[in-house]
């Protein structure tokens, strides 16, 4: 076969990368609208800061650590393709039979956007109180020490991939990042919330979202961008991409309905924050499963994730960790729901579809490894930064508002 440039797939991957890039500003709005008006800018700045830092380091050593020469199946060699040089292969064969390829540089862009959003997700757990410089340093360190290794393990033919040891039980399924992105970020959010500590006044005082239309806009941009995330992860403009696209929509629909139902039953009212949260829960849950389910089983998965996360957001008050914007309740919990339920619902290999228990076992294994890996790495980074740069702004600055005290700005004009 003669390699040929598949312009259709390349077009779709360029688009997918663009879509996923837009998710991080979408997240900035989703999170920013949920903060109080005195700290939205800081939240948005954490997201934009992640774009800047991770965007730059991804081309320097991120790609190489993800897809470069493997060091024991755990991480790629950062020097192997440092700065996209070295053994960087400009051609990515998509189909061995036809010879269709896309330029690897397109994949670099696509992958960089995943690294960015994963880091940005974590910011939600530490709203209102974090030193900005420490955050920027954390973003670089965490991407390097937690995200790149995880992506190597799962997508770079590493330990948790089909090339790893567990594939003998069943091939682990993580279509677009249930472990790498959501469990990883969710665990990191939990660890940071614990290390950094509660906001002054939490949970006694009211920490109400200050701008729900922004939250809904953010959720919508996330949904839109997620088509690139999930359907782009098909690495093709084909049936798998189409299936992932449709599953992304039906799972989200199911999750909205699931979340709203819980609210209606528990509180008597279905809220817009619930709908927006349901959107994200559904998207998170379908992420690992987008290629493995049918549109109908995706509705079921989404609904279960919506219900699970609607309950899980109350855990933080019960256990007393101030995961401010529910990175744990939404990303960790729905990420786990999606990753594990593949073992039951996968069209070919799921327990409910006659595939036996193997898939379920493997899914649980990769979820647990992701939790442990991310937990340990994040804890080490967080403690080192605590001892060196420090994490917290002064309590008084927190009360006055971090936008004003850390960024010398206020989000909205007023006479004071």
């Amino acid at each position: 076969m003669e390699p040929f440039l598949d312009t259709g797939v390349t077009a779709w991957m360029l688009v997918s990368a663009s879509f996923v890039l837009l998710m991080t500003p979408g997240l900035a709005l989703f999170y920013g609208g949920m903060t109080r008006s005195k700290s939205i800018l800081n939240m948005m700045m954490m997201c934009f800061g992640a774009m800047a830092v991770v965007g730059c380091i991804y081309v320097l050593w991120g790609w190489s650590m993800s897809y470069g020469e493997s060091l024991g199946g755990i991480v790629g060699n950062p020097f192997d393709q440092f700065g996209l040089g070295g053994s960087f292969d400009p051609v990515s064969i998509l189909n061995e039979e036809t010879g269709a390829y896309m330029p690897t540089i397109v994949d670099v862009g696509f992958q960089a956007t995943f690294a960015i959003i994963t880091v940005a997700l974590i910011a939600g757990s530490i709203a209102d109180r974090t030193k900005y410089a420490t955050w920027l340093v954390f973003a670089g360190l965490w991407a390097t020490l937690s995200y790149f290794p995880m992506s190597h393990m799962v997508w770079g033919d590493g330990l948790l991939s089909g090339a790893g040891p567990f594939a003998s039980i069943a091939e682990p399924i993580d279509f677009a990042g249930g472990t790498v992105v959501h469990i990883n970020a969710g665990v990191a959010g939990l660890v940071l919330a614990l290390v950094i500590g509660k906001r002054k006044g939490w949970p006694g005082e009211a920490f109400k979202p200050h701008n729900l239309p922004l939250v809904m806009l953010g959720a919508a941009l996330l949904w839109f961008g997620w088509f690139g995330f999930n359907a782009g992860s098909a690495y093709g403009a084909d049936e798998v991409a189409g299936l992932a696209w449709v599953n992304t929509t039906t799972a989200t629909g199911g999750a909205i309905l699931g979340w709203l139902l819980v609210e209606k039953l528990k509180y008597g009212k279905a809220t817009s924050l619930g709908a927006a949260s349901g959107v994200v829960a559904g998207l998170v849950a379908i992420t690992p499963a987008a290629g493995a389910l049918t549109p109908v089983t995706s509705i079921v998965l989404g609904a279960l994730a919506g219900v699970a996360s609607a309950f899980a957001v109350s855990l933080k008050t019960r256990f007393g960790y101030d995961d401010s914007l529910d990175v744990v309740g939404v990303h960790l919990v729905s990420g786990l729901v999606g990753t594990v339920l593949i073992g039951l619902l996968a069209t070919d290999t799921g327990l409910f579809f006659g595939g036996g228990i193997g898939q379920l076992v493997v899914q649980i294994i990769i979820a647990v490894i992701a939790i442990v890996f991310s937990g340990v790495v994040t804890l080490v980074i967080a403690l080192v930064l605590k001892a060196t740069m420090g994490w917290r702004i002064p309590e008084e600055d927190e009360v006055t508002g971090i936008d004003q005290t850390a960024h010398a700005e206020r989000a909205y004009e007023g006479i004071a």
Partner: protein
Amino acid sequence: MKLITAVIQPHKLDDVKAALEAAGVRGLTVSEASGYGRQKGHTEVYRGAEYTVDLVPKVRVEVLVNDEDVTTLTGVVVNAAQTGKIGDGKVWVTSVDDVIRVRTGASGPDAL
């Protein structure tokens, strides 16, 4: 001179304004306020956290009037603002030592 201050339901502002205008009042000042009282507030729910909001949106109307008009005009305000439901608000009257119109510097009743 006197200052009539009325804290009323927001949707009654237009009625009160019209009634005062009809009664010959040529100026007034309005601002946003929130009230706490017998009228109960409401509950809000955000991701499972329930908040009781006991402040209710109100509007404050201030009118400077001549001493002799006080009774009439408080009556006008009360009538226009009344719905008969809890939360209709309060009207109160205070004495004013002096009033000055900024544009002209004129003071006293002429400044109204």
